[in-house]
């Protein structure tokens, strides 16, 4: 296990364990429409063995639809997705044999013990007899619940349930693991423990797709990150690549009451100011040096309305996210 708060060491370990082969997960031009809502607009990405791919986006961005397609639960309108070279749409059951899924909600039977829960899920993956017993022992050890195996899980803490939730997805030794916000609602200690566990899964050679709301998790954990919004991947790359894409520009957020229709015209008159978002209650702008340009921007904003709050953000992944999507991750 990795120590908490050691992201660089964790990433280094992951790189060393990456298999030399091609991608395990290949997603190409996925499109999906639910009525009038175009949930996916041609998403493409690949994930290699031992790699953790972070899918970062707000609610409704298209993460769940993407996960649903990778699990074979949602049929895409166009495009292709494969796991280990198996086309998911054509052979969903075969594809799911190599897939381990850790859903966002704790999907376990509360009246059963940890061992009984794993016993059931193991059987669904074709395990039985000694192989099943051995697999259960192994994953319980791995998630640190071996000594609580026979207890009814209704006595478990939130962190323990999350770990068991992960264990159920790892039981059959999958080469692809999809983790849908596995740390939601946990305390920092439990989160750290689960992040270590995720890193160890990748270290073992599995390709991991990790969706999250937490930018710091994505920064600490993921080898590559795809920023998704409105059904499209807006940016993709390593953390370093994304930071470079964000540039050295800072973001100034002005909150108050504005005439949104007049903003674009006023911003054009300002030197070295880019508009990200303009609404009646918020203006998001990027500038080279916020401290130097703040007075000038406040003067401009006062011609557009009333400013009640000013915030300056330093260059970061969050800045890039805001720059790309026009909103914060939790919007």
């Amino acid at each position, binding site marked *: 296990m990795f120590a908490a708060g050691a992201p660089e060491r964790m990433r280094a370990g992951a790189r060393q364990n990456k298999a030399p082969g091609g991608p395990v997960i290949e997603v190409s031009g996925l499109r999906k429409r*639910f009525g009038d809502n175009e949930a996916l607009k041609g998403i493409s990405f690949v994930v290699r063995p031992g790699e953790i791919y972070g899918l970062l986006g707000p609610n409704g961005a298209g993460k769940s639809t993407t996960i649903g397609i990778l699990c074979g*639960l949602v049929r895409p309108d166009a495009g292709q997705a494969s796991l280990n070279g198996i086309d998911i749409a054509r052979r969903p*059951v075969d594809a*799911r044999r190599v897939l381990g899924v850790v859903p966002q909600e704790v*999907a376990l039977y509360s*009246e059963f013990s940890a061992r009984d829960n794993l016993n059931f899920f193991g059987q*669904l993956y*074709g395990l039985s007899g000694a192989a099943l017993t051995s697999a259960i022992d192994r994953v319980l050890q791995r998630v640190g619940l071996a000594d609580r195996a026979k207890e009814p899980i209704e006595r478990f803490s939130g962190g323990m349930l999350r770990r068991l939730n992960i264990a159920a997805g790892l039981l059959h030794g999958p080469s692809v693991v999809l983790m849908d916000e596995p740390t939601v609602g946990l305390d920092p200690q439990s989160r750290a423990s689960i992040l270590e566990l995720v890193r160890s899964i990748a270290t073992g050679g599995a390709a991991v797709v990790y969706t999250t709301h937490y930018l710091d998790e994505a920064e600490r954990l993921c080898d590559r990150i795809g920023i998704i919004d409105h059904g499209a991947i807006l940016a993709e790359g390593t953390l370093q690549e994304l930071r470079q894409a964000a540039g050295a520009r800072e973001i100034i957020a002005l909150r108050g009451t504005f005439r949104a229709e007049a903003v674009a015209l006023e911003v054009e008159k300002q030197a070295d100011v880019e508009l990200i978002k303009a609404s009646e209650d918020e203006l998001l702008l990027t500038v080279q040096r916020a401290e130097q340009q703040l007075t000038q921007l406040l003067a401009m904003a006062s011609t557009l309305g009333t400013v009640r709050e000013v915030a300056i953000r330093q260059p970061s992944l969050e800045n890039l996210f805001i720059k790309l999507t026009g909103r914060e991750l939790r919007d």
Partner: protein
Amino acid sequence: MRAILIIAAHQIRRVVRNPGLILLLLAIPLTLAVMEYAAFGRTAAEGKLPPTKVLFLDEDDTLASGAVPQVFSGGPAKDFFELAQVPSRDEAARMFTRGDASALIVVPKGFQDALLAGRPSELVFYANPIQTIGPEIARSMVEMTALIGNGLYAQALEPIGRLKALFDQKRDPTSAEVAAISQGFFEAGRRLGGFQALGDLKVNVQRPGEAEARTGFGNDPKMFFAYVFPGLVVFALMFIAQSLAMRLLRDRMNGLQRRIVMAPVSPMSVVMGGVVYLVTGLLALLVALAVIGAIIFRIQLRDPVSLVAIGLGFAVFAAGLHLLSGSLARSDRSAGFVGSVVVLVLSLVGGTFVPAETYPPFMRAVAALVPNGAAQQGFIDVLVHRVPLADLGGRLGVTWAWGLVTMALAVYFERRRLRV
């Protein structure tokens, strides 16, 4: 197939681990059967109505007044009435309030004198206001007796009138008057003599068909539970099916079903795993109820093949019904509400609470066409009327047709919901 069995076995294991609600639901038909037996069972077993308690207050205390209770305590009436003397009207009122009696008959003072004097005489009848049927039975008996008495009296009205006139004039009759009065009584006697057979009148009760070919519960009162229990079992089974199906629905809402579908099993296997769990569970509980019925209520489980054929068909229907409502519902609350309403309506129409044989013809036909009504009557046909499997075609056909159609719809909608 393996996945179907794994899922079904897992769900059944959950029920076994956490059987509280199911045990509670199992107790419903047993409790209702005991309650129905307490209310009607003894009467039905003996083939008699429960006795109506009538109070009697003799304020006249004469020979004639003392004969009045004979109306209720003599002849066949003694099986239908329980007569009790009371010392006062107040005591009778207290017993009415407690529901201890249905009626009070008072013979007022001067009753005999009025009879002898030829004046109008009356019995006073009080009905217990908190009861309905008992007082009506007692009143009918009193009025009928008075009617017969008045009728007999009317036959000798003419000579009695002559006698009364003589008494009023306080004189001895002449020879001609004696002859005329004697002639009058003689004529009355001759008229009644024509009905000599009335003195030995019996009622010969006949029932259609041969003794072995019983066609109604009334022919064999010992079959009380075999007649009552199937309806209650069918009723309980529908609620048990709802409870079992709700577990699947909650699994869906808690993300457990989604997790199962993410495993390498086909969506159809997941759906069929639920179906096998529901049908197997219901059939097992049906067998348990049948065995309990045989042990506690002495129901003879004759023709097990027919019973299983009906029971399986109904289990398929009950499972399909609640699986379908779960598939179409947006929440467990709406599924629970819709399922409960459907079960109650079916139970009312199918004859769970009131025997369908007492329905008007149209409703009786409807009862035979709803699945629970057909299954209930099928069970009764086998257990009470000893109908062989070959003659159960109609009941089996209706039960299985409902079962297969409902289940097919449930599987279709469940399967469709699992694939977006």
